[in-house]
């Protein structure tokens, strides 16, 4: 039930960018802030579901996305809301499979998340005896991942250009340092999966 609500919310959030792109068709000049696509991601430590406007740079080799992510409270007292700025680098070009399908062999992503909520602070309390009592910043988390994407060209749509389905294997800063500190932590202890879909706009 909650998941349905979330998907609905995400669709609503995507609407303004679609409207803008249609407007762009008629005026043939897109506003600088109009995104080149909309990305929806499941898991990957940036929310159970997260949604982002997506921007392409450097002939699509680099993509920048700003995700809003949501984590239900599950067994905690409260849900989590976070923003993640994610850069994706695609070192290799698309490999065509058929007329409509192609594969992007590798996407390398790096994201910086900011957590809202009072228990996460950007500065530790000055009540600590030393300024380096805890070395990390609580409200900011660094995530990274890599994986391929399957792309499908949408030939009959005047609004959308391409639909991409991607998968990610990733980790994040704190657990990666734990694995560095203790060699018995296995790869499976620190890795996690994500799947996402991106629709690019004409």
């Amino acid at each position, binding site marked *: 039930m909650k*998941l349905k609500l979330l998907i609905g919310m995400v669709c609503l959030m995507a609407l303004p960018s679609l409207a803008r792109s249609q407007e762009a068709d008629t005026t043939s000049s897109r506003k600088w802030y109009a995104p080149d696509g909309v990305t929806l991601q*499941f*898991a*990957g*430590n*940036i*929310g*159970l579901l997260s949604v982002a406007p997506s921007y392409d740079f450097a002939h699509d080799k680099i993509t920048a996305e700003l995700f809003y*992510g949501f*984590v239900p*409270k*599950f*067994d*905690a*007292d*409260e849900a*989590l809301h*976070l923003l993640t700025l994610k850069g994706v680098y695609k070192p290799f070009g698309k490999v065509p*499979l*058929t007329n*409509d*399908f192609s594969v992007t062999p590798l996407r390398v992503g790096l994201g910086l*998340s900011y*957590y809202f909520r009072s*228990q*996460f602070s950007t500065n530790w*309390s000055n*009540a*600590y*005896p030393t300024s380096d009592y*805890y070395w*990390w910043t*609580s409200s900011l*988390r660094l995530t990274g991942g890599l994986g391929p994407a399957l792309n*499908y060209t*949408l030939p009959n749509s005047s609004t959308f250009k391409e*639909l991409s*389905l991607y998968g990610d294997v990733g980790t*994040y800063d*704190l*657990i990666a340092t*734990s694995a560095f*500190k*203790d*060699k*018995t*932590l296995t790869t*499976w*202890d620190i*890795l*996690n*999966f*994500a*799947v996402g*879909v991106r629709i690019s706009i004409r």
Partner: protein
Amino acid sequence: MFIKLKQYGHTALGPALLLLLALSNQACEEFEYSPYEVRLEEGEKQINQRNIARIEALNIAPEDTFQFILASDVQGFYEENEAMVKNINRRNDIAFLLLGGDLTDFGLAKEFKLINEDFGTLHMPYVAVVGNHDAVNNGQQAFKAMYGDFNTSFAIGNSRFILLNTNYIEFDKQVPDLDWLEKELAASAGYKNIFVLSHIPPGNYEFGKENRARYEQLMSQYHVTYSLHGHNHKFNAYYPYDGTVPYVQTAAAEDREYLVFTVTGEYVSFERVNF
């Protein structure tokens, strides 16, 4: 699959994605939503409460002799923890184990789960008190969901155990709750032995300077048997205040040491064990 998708066109992609989402949602815990998420299995909830019930079910009589272990600061030392649990499981003379806080480095539910994977395989129950590292990030919510109340107590034989949250800075200077402690101590009047366990010892700055005198005065006033601590990653035994109550601070798991306490009637002793 590609050909099928092509035939049905992009109308097939929607249901396919939803199916994938539904499958992944159920199947796999490798899908993580946030480092700060608190998403637990049934067996990972209310561990203290369930283990205290197991300790009470031992039905140890006041005249019985029993032994318990104090270990502390196990954060991130998974290799040493595995060795410790193996070592402890080789002996069969221990009633239960007390964990003196800092189960985690970052208060992550994932770290608590990994720790419970180790200490959950102990042949005896374990009970944990919250440490300062357990209370950072989203750790307070994670600890509460997994281990329960920050302050708790239980009794076995003629001994009473009081677990106190002393993480002054992480709890915005609202702890330790010394009024609660005094009530617990007053309620322990019928017991021969009283053990008070907390992570940060009162001599540390992070205990809150204004709390030290009253804590030490309470320990002496109620004739506490031992004031037990961790936090400083170093064994220490000393008699502060009026010299009547022993304070014992145990080493960290990385030092490959734990303490074994033996309770026989009113007589309590402890030994340091290296593994």
